[in-house]
């Protein structure tokens, strides 16, 4: 191994370890570029991270002052743990190697008071000592962005193209639902399901079947599969719905629960994008059967962490805990960055011609990023089953805007500990989110229809249940990066999957290299040695 570590020049410097940045870092490393990848945090994932329970709890429930006292508190507790364990060892030695009759002290009565509120005890193994707490908390993977993967989407294709990612374990998500008249219904995606779905009226069933048949058969290159008299580019989605005789409600659930638009502005735009989205939904649904979605068994952070490992095994250098001090420009072009050396902490300048960074590294810089929206999310930790979902282990529920007299849909994302390793047994992580419409100082009020749906209406919380409200500003870059070589990624939007993230990856790759990114063509060596 090259022992000099940090060099003074890289082909690409990536700042931030959200999924978008980690995919790009992986791709450029695989392509043979020298990549330096840094993040100000001590963990991977940035805005798209999933956090362990300890970290999640303390960032949400502890003040910065309380967090500052944490290291000291941990050390004091660990000292007590070591002393108690030493006592037990001595007892064992004196009693012929047996702990029988040993009265262990109640550690929690010995520990000093916690600087901030303690976790609900039920969320970890009963009686877990401070020594055991990290492992207990690591059983939780709480996602900051409530997103699934489309089973036939681009991200899935990326993962399939890179052998080093093949052993990521994914499970299918149990169901995809849309709410009508206060009850969740499975979204029908095949002709058979259309026939039996209580979502659509008798008359509409036939029309919906025709529409789904058209979707299933559609091939861009085969005019015989196209709708006669309609074009994807010159006709709107409204025209298509009309041509199939689909009524307002049927088109609403198609647009919102299959094409996954958060509002109705798509209706009067060309039909190509919505049709492609519906095709993606239907094909994803057909992959595994229960829903169009899959999710990593070990939570969302599996993705940025795995892509970062791809980057590392192909030579990328990674430094967490390394903030971006300054971007260096010469004559309007970025020429490098100043960072604190990860070992010596001395400021160093690293040169590069290509800088990729997430927008949170440019907060407040209106020449670089602009705000495009605001999302409110409630991450709920619950221990009851959501009504109307037939006990599935994971689900997406969409409440269309029209059902709530809103402009934007409310999304519910649920993964439970039944099959996913994301929480303590008996618990589910549920995210309720929407785009903020009002100027209220309490945007979480806009989530109320979602809270009602998951049994947490009117501020109700069951025993050992909690709700964490987060308001997140969404940003996009002002410029495309080609003039100054600073390529800024987009925030994770309100959609329920990562398709816009992979669009961003492809787009940035093309802006940087001038070439289309074809993942299937990446020159990936077969890294896993097979000896069988």
């Amino acid at each position, binding site marked *: 191994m090259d022992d000099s570590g940090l060099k003074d020049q890289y082909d690409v410097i990536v700042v931030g370890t959200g999924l978008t940045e980690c995919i790009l870092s992986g791709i450029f490393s695989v392509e043979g570029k020298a990549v330096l990848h840094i993040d100000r945090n001590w963990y991977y994932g940035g805005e798209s991270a999933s956090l362990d329970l300890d970290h999640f709890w303390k960032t949400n429930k502890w003040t910065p002052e309380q967090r500052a006292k944490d290291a000291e508190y941990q050390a004091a507790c660990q000292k007590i743990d070591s002393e108690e364990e030493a006592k037990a060892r001595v007892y064992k030695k004196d009693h012929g190697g047996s702990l029988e009759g040993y009265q262990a002290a109640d550690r929690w009565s010995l520990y000093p008071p916690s600087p901030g509120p303690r976790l609900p005890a039920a969320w970890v193994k009963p009686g877990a000592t401070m020594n055991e707490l990290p*492992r207990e908390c690591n059983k939780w993977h709480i996602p900051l962005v409530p997103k699934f993967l489309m089973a036939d989407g681009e991200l899935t294709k990326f993962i399939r193209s890179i052998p080093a990612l093949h*052993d990521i374990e994914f499970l299918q998500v149990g169901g995809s639902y849309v709410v009508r008249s206060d009850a969740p219904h499975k979204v029908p995606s095949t002709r058979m399901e259309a026939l039996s779905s209580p979502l659509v009226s008798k008359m509409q069933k036939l029309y919906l079947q025709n529409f789904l048949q058209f979707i299933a058969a559609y091939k861009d290159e085969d005019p015989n599969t196209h709708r006669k008299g309609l074009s994807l580019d010159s006709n709107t989605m409204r025209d298509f719905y009309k041509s199939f005789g689909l009524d307002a409600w049927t088109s609403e659930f198609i647009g919102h629960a299959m094409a996954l638009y958060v509002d109705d502005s798509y209706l009067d735009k060309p039909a190509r994008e919505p049709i492609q989205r519906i095709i993606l939904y239907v094909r994803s649904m057909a992959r595994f059967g229960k829903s169009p979605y899959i999710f990593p068994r070990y939570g969302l*952070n599996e993705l940025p962490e795995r892509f970062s490992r791809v980057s590392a*095994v192909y030579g990328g250098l990674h430094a967490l805990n390394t903030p971006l001090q300054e971007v260096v420009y010469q004559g309007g072009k970025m020429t490098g960055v100043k960072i604190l050396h990860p070992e010596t902490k001395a400021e160093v300048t690293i040169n590069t011609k290509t800088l990729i960074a997430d927008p949170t590294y440019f907060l407040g810089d209106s020449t670089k990023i602009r705000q495009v929206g605001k999302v409110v999310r409630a991450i709920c930790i619950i221990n009851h089953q959501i009504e109307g979902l037939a006990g599935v282990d994971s689900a997406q529920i969409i409440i269309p805007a029209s059902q709530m007299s809103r402009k934007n849909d409310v999304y519910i994302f649920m993964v439970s500990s039944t*099959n996913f390793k994301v929480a303590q047994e008996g618990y589910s992580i549920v995210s309720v989110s929407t785009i903020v419409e009002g100027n209220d100082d309490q945007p979480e009020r806009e989530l109320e229809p979602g809270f009602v749906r998951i049994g947490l209406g009117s501020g109700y919380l069951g025993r050992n249940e909690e709700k964490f409200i987060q308001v997140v500003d969404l940003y996009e870059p002002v410029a495309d990066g080609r003039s100054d070589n600073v390529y800024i990624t987009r925030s994770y939007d309100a959609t329920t999957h990562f398709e816009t993230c992979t669009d961003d990856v492809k787009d940035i790759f093309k802006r940087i290299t001038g070439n289309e990114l074809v993942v299937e063509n990446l020159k990936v060596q077969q890294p896993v040695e097979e000896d069988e």
Partner: protein
Amino acid sequence: MATRGSTSTRFAQFKLVLLGESAVGKSSLVLRFVKDQFDDYRESTIGAAFLTQTIALDDATTVKFEIWDTAGQERYKSLAPMYYRNANCAVVVYDITAPASLDKAKAWVKELQRQANENIVIALAGNKLDLAADGPKQTSRRAIETADAEAYAREAGLLFFETSAKTAENVKELFTAIAKKLPLDQQGPRGIRGAQGAGPRGVNLNRTNETQQGCNC
């Protein structure tokens, strides 16, 4: 490899992670074990997600190691938790000529004991044993006494070997000792990994059609 098909044959697969300071010879140790090679000026393995090596413990028992290298991410404390998630065993390596590397190894052991699987088997390996030999051409560069490291390993409940990736001394012995300590009876369909806790098997992304069933190995 043991004959398959015989009912008395046990075959188990385990995830093994390597930890230790940069340049203590983690990759060299694996290369010696997996390919029986050594290169003084070797660059780190590029492109390897993991390497595998199988050892036959006896006529009826075969153990396959899936060996994960840090790929350099340990250098700036940038190793992701997924690295040791589900690891069944770990080799924590130090360099017997570099005292600070044992301190680093102890920190890794502590980290593993706090964060990894409860029943993870950890082995401590003092590498570069070849540099400890006194001979006509060299004087020993040993800086960490065997007894000191051994006492620490016993205290912390670790397997302990001094190894040389260069001469192959104790390399096979190290991995065999780990294999013997692993709970072979708990193996699942794909070794222990993924078999803990029941629940559905993961979906196979490479399968192109409809509903999937059965084995995806």
